């Protein structure tokens, strides 16, 4: 148990608002996925660094859906269960492009800022 908690402590919290971006990107890159699939993909890419309550993926999915950036339809999952498959829409792709650019710009600025401090 104590070992588990240690691992948890090392994980970084997911930044507010970045989850939406990740979900969009996953759907853009991999095509239609259900919530579980998206969670697995994020886990895989992040190399278990990000701490994610997988339930929050669904909040993100609902938010994206309400904005019209993704759509959903029912299908069957790997274990033959009813599952909702989400896919990115045209306006979702546009949004993703914009957000990605934005993110990279900010990340660049923050990176430069941090390096600057390191030099002092």
């Amino acid at each position, binding site marked *: 148990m104590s070992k588990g908690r240690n691992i948890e402590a090392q994980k970084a919290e997911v930044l507010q608002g970045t989850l939406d971006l990740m979900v969009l990107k996953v759907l853009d890159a991999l095509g239609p996925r*259900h*919530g*579980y699939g998206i*969670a697995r993909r994020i886990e895989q890419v992040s190399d278990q660094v990000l701490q994610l*309550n*997988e*339930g*929050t993926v*669904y*909040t993100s999915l*609902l*938010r994206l*859906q*309400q*904005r*019209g950036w993704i759509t959903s339809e029912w299908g069957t*999952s*790997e*274990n033959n*269960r*009813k*599952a*909702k498959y989400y896919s990115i829409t045209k306006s979702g792709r546009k949004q993703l492009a914009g957000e990605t650019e934005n993110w990279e710009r900010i990340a660049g600025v923050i990176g430069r800022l941090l390096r600057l401090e390191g030099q002092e």
Partner: protein
Amino acid sequence: MIHYLRALAARIRGFFGDRRADQELDDEIETHLRLLMERYVRQGMTEDEASQAACRQFGNATLLKEAHRDMRGIRFIETLIQDVRYGLRMMLKHKVFTAVAALSLALGIGANTAIFSLLDALLLKTLPVKNPEQLVFVGGLEYQYPPQLDRALRNIPIPDPVYREMSEKNKVFSGIFTYNWVEATVNDGSLAERVSGQLVSGNFFTVMGVGAHLGRIFTDDDDRTPGAHFVTVISYDYWRSRFGADPNIVGKKISINTRPFTIIGVSAQGFNDVDVGAAPALRVPMMMKDLMHDPRNDTPVMARLKPGISIEQAQVAADALFQSIIREYGASSLSNRYSNASRIELSPAGRGVSASELRDRYLQPLLFLLCLVGMVLLIACLNIANLLLARAAARRKEIAVRLAVGAGRLRLIRQLLTESFLLSTLGGALGLVFARIGTDLLLGLLPLTREIKLDMRMLGITLVVTVLTGVLFGLAPALQATRFDLIPALKNDAAGMRGGRRKWELRRLLVVLQVALSLVFLVCGGLFVRSLQNLKAVDLGYTSDQIVSMSLALGTSGYTTDQQRSFYQQLSERLTALPGVKSATYAKSMPLEPKPYGKEEGEIEVPGSHSPPNEKLTTLMHPITPQFFATFGIPLLRGRDFNWQDSVGRIYKVVIVNDRFARYFFGNENPLGKRISVAGFEFEIVGVVGDARLNSLKETMSRTVYYPAFTALLANQRLCVRAMGDAGALIAAIRNEVRRLDPNVPVYDIKTFADQIDESISRERLIALLSSFFGLFALLLAGLGLYGVMAYAVARRTREIGIRMALGAQAGNVLWLALRETLLLVSIGVAIGLPAALAVTRLTRGMLFGLTENDPLTIGLATLVMMAIAAMAGYLPARRAAQVDPMMVLRQE
């Protein structure tokens, strides 16, 4: 923005598809957990461990569901329901507050809507026809003798030959038509009844622009040959009320004045008449006028202007045409009335005409009432504002507690706004009911034959005004209340509210205004009530009790004039023989009934008596039938009553004069047997009777001459019967006697004379009733407002009062301290209210009887009543202040 709208749309969808969305989310979570579990089991965990790990990895599912519901918008609705529920609970808890607020709102909304609807129907509404602005009334203009007075008689009907010439030769009208009102006896085989009808030229409907609801309307071909067109178009309302909206009505035959007519159509819904007060049940072609017993050879004429022609242009052209027609015919061949007519006058008729003077009679009272109810609305709004401010002050602590336990400011404001809205809605709903009742009430008090629909625009406007007041004053305290420091408010400290002083001033201002407006109301109400009392106290000179009257339509039942006289005579004899009947007589119009052509007056010459220079002596003239004086209880002082022989032929022989007449001309001499000349005819005086006011309650007793109604006047008389006991009990017996004489004579419009006298002062009673009611209501509201403000002021100053008393102030001093404020407010209110009242009462000039509009007694009394109520409203809190126990107050510190 787009995103926001999308989210809103999703929220709305979310609310309605909520169950399904919940279920779907459950399914998704379930699938997710299963998949996680299976993975952990594959990695070698036991089922239990896997399930636990899956749950941990997923996070709090309940919280997730709640967040989703929130996002889908369900919370928004839930909060609203919560607010409404809480608001309703608050309303129920403060019943008096709710009742006073909602009632004043309802009165404001209802009264304004009702009176405006009526005013609109009478004055403002255009006729429901195409292009009503093109319609003009074509009237003759005659200068009355003596010409130097220059008083013009307007809107005289046009003689038929002139109408015909004009309709052929004019170039400015696209159509010109004529019409005339008649009464007709309708019999559909089962029931005979009297209805109001109209004779119209064949193009009436087409020029007017009114279509048919069923069947067809008249064409020119329906109006060609005198006495040959047995067709009728009935009105929509008559079709519904009499024929139960029978879809197969077209082609059906009914009997009109005992002749069979075919119903060829039902006129369009919504169109009543060109006259604002009338609603003819059926229309027949003008060529049938003989059958309708319409002896007139001149009729009202209306026309439609050609497009692009102004009324001034048309006026010039029509008048020129009229002059040439007059020259061509020679004035002598036209009807007498027209010989002096100098010109044609066109007046706009798009809003209809008012033949019965309904507009003139009720314009001033209705405008005045609208002015009053406008003030009622103002008072209602002031009152609501005051109440809401007071309540916000009272709820300071509650709001502080809610803020302290973490309620959001927006949430609180929303809560308070919801309450204001609820109150306004309640007031509005009640107002709608009040408006409905008010309109019916007004209609019952006015001589109108048509229905009035509620004016939705006015209802909307008043609703918006009141709701806005509610929101505005609900919002102000809400904003203020959520801005103050929590700690002092929780500690129940009076100084805790920032901005409290300013609001306090606002409330005082509101109360002062309320006092001022109430005073205006009290003065108006007082004036009208006293005026009504004066009217009721008028000595008529005759009795109003135990008399019942009814109309008999002999003229339209096929009687010749000689037959009519003998019918009346026989009926009189039979009725007088009935047990319980004292006497019976006939009258063209009842005493006090408005006369369509004004009162009859004639110049008088009495041999031996000299009229004063520069003045022609005149006398009122009344045509009557035998037994008139006995029936109405006017004492016969000397000589004899008329008998039926007196009214044989057209030559006047005898008259009866009233006491005033006899004294003026003959002093103490015996006037019997004297010969006089009235309006150019020679008479012998055969009797003297007591003075009586027959034309109006307001007239002064004047010289009066009674002459026997000659035969031409006998058609369509009202039968008046004086009973020994209850007149109502005789009605069945009277009907029975009429039926035994001739079953085809309709008996209708049965009234007791007392009711009719009441009717004659309906206008005055209506205004007295409404203005005194509103006055009392305003007084009550002002009293409540004053009380609220003073109670609050005393509560705030309790500590100060306690200290003063501890330092030796007497109860009397404290009482005065508290009362002083009240008296100051009231004095300011009265100082504003008195000039305002004087300004408003100037509008009542001509509507009062027996007192002037600035009657000092009424104004003094109203001020006194206002002061007394204010003193009472101020005294109660003041006494509470005087009873403060200084020890208690000081210990509370």
